[in-house]
């Protein structure tokens, strides 16, 4: 395993450590932990909101570039404040009280969707010494949390008591549970290579080369499967038939108005970030800078770039690829969608797991 303390990577526990010592200096242990947890919570909240706003702007600009348009360019320089304007607009829209819905479940659904994405968000490797949730089963916890989101979507569609939302939710449910299998299997493939499920261990195992380079052809296949399944998991791109606007208006959130709709929108963009963040963690080393064995000078230069920039930068690059998918492939039909998963991706990922086991047993990985 890579030894971080020998490298030039900035360890953020050199910042958080003194704060912790200062807090415990005049507070009992539990109170200090509470204060730290509140600080972490506020930090998470701000990061979550800012990333979501950035992603909305980013997607609109990228989409515009693909269609030879300018995209948002009126509010603020280069339209940078457009997402903020949208956020305030959504806040001042009326929350319509419908008279045919299951009120409790209707209100519960956005909570589930946001909680699921927030829990996944906190597991991601933000930097050296910035790991928030660090269970020894981290990546498994992440998969478990991400499947709570499906419940939120199914609840939203069902409790709205509307034909469009019901069909949208069922499509979304079928799609998300199906593609979760491929995600799970490509994660298992990479866990075989890492020998651990802890997020920190997986990152540290990639200190002398990212898994996409170390894992031979099996890692590349796992990466491609993961990206396809991840795009489907976020209901995006060619797999956006749960909200196919020409047939289902807006899919499962047709009946949601104002900020209620905003939560689904927020979670959708954050899930895009989470999917690319997990791909970064498993295949591109999480926060680990690019290291090439033997190139000492190069490695040292790379170490001086702060680790959160590495992580967020890699995640945004992968998100760009996912947005690219959307403008390249036509939307699939539900039968094509399910046969793509069950007849192609699932057998290929089962085969790929066996391939990875062969590579590791024969010692062909690097």
């Amino acid at each position, binding site marked *: 395993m890579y030894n971080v303390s020998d490298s030039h990577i900035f360890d953020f526990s050199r910042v958080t450590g003194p704060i912790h010592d200062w807090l415990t200096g005049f507070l009992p242990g539990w109170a200090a932990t509470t204060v730290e947890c509140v600080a972490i919570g506020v930090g998470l909240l701000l990061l979550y909101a800012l990333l979501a706003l950035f992603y909305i702007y980013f997607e609109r600009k990228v989409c515009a570039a693909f269609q030879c348009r300018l995209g948002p360019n009126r509010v603020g320089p280069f339209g940078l404040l457009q997402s903020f304007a949208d956020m305030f607009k959504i*806040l001042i829209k009326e929350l319509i009280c419908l008279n045919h819905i299951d009120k409790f479940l209707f209100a519960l659904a956005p909570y589930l969707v946001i909680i699921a994405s927030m829990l996944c968000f906190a597991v991601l490797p933000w930097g050296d010494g910035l790991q928030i949730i660090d269970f020894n089963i981290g990546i498994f916890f992440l998969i478990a949390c991400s499947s709570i989101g499906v419940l939120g979507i199914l609840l939203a569609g069902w409790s709205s008591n509307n034909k469009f939302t019901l069909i949208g939710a069922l499509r979304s449910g079928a799609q998300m549970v199906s593609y979760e299998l491929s995600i799970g299997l490509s994660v298992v493939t990479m866990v075989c290579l890492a*020998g651990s499920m802890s997020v920190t261990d997986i990152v540290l195992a990639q200190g002398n080369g990212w898994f996409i380079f170390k894992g031979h052809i099996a890692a590349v296949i796992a990466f491609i499967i993961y990206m396809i399944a991840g795009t489907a998991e976020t209901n995006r791109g060619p797999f956006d038939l749960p909200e196919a606007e020409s047939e289902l208006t807006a899919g499962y959130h047709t009946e949601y108005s104002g900020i209620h709709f905003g939560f689904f929108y927020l979670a959708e963009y954050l899930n895009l970030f989470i999917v690319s963040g997990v791909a970064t963690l498993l295949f591109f080393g999480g926060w680990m800078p690019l290291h090439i064995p033997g190139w000492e000078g190069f490695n040292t230069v790379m170490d001086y770039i702060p680790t959160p920039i590495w992580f967020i930068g890699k995640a945004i690059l992968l998100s760009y690829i996912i947005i690219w998918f959307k403008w390249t492939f036509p939307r699939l039909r539900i039968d094509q969608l399910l046969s793509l998963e069950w007849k192609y991706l699932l057998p290929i990922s089962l085969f790929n797991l066996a391939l990875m086991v062969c590579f590791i047993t024969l010692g062909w990985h690097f």
Partner: protein
Amino acid sequence: MIPLAIFGIENSGVLAITALLTGVALVALAMWIAGLISPRSFNPQKGEAYECGIPTRGESMSQFHVGYYLFAILFLMFDVETVFLFPWAVRMQALGAQGILSIAVFFGVLVLGLVYAWRKGALEWK
């Protein structure tokens, strides 16, 4: 093991609860602000189901394709498989040939299950 967690908090359960409460706080806070500044007006038409402006016809809870259930059941089978694969995957390199052989039998049975479902036509969307 170098403590890499933020503030050196060893107990990740506390942090998981923090993240959960942050999610709840985000929704509650935004709902509260929206409740304060958003307008309220009453109109009996607003409470109706949004179905392209046409009054709803028949039951909203319409019948749907049985295929959704079928795929959910298949999902359950393979998801449980993944649960069994994870602990083995962590110890894969230490367990060696015996571990691979044991899991190969389990794996083979599940692949047979998939082949069976495929041959029976359960993967076709009719």
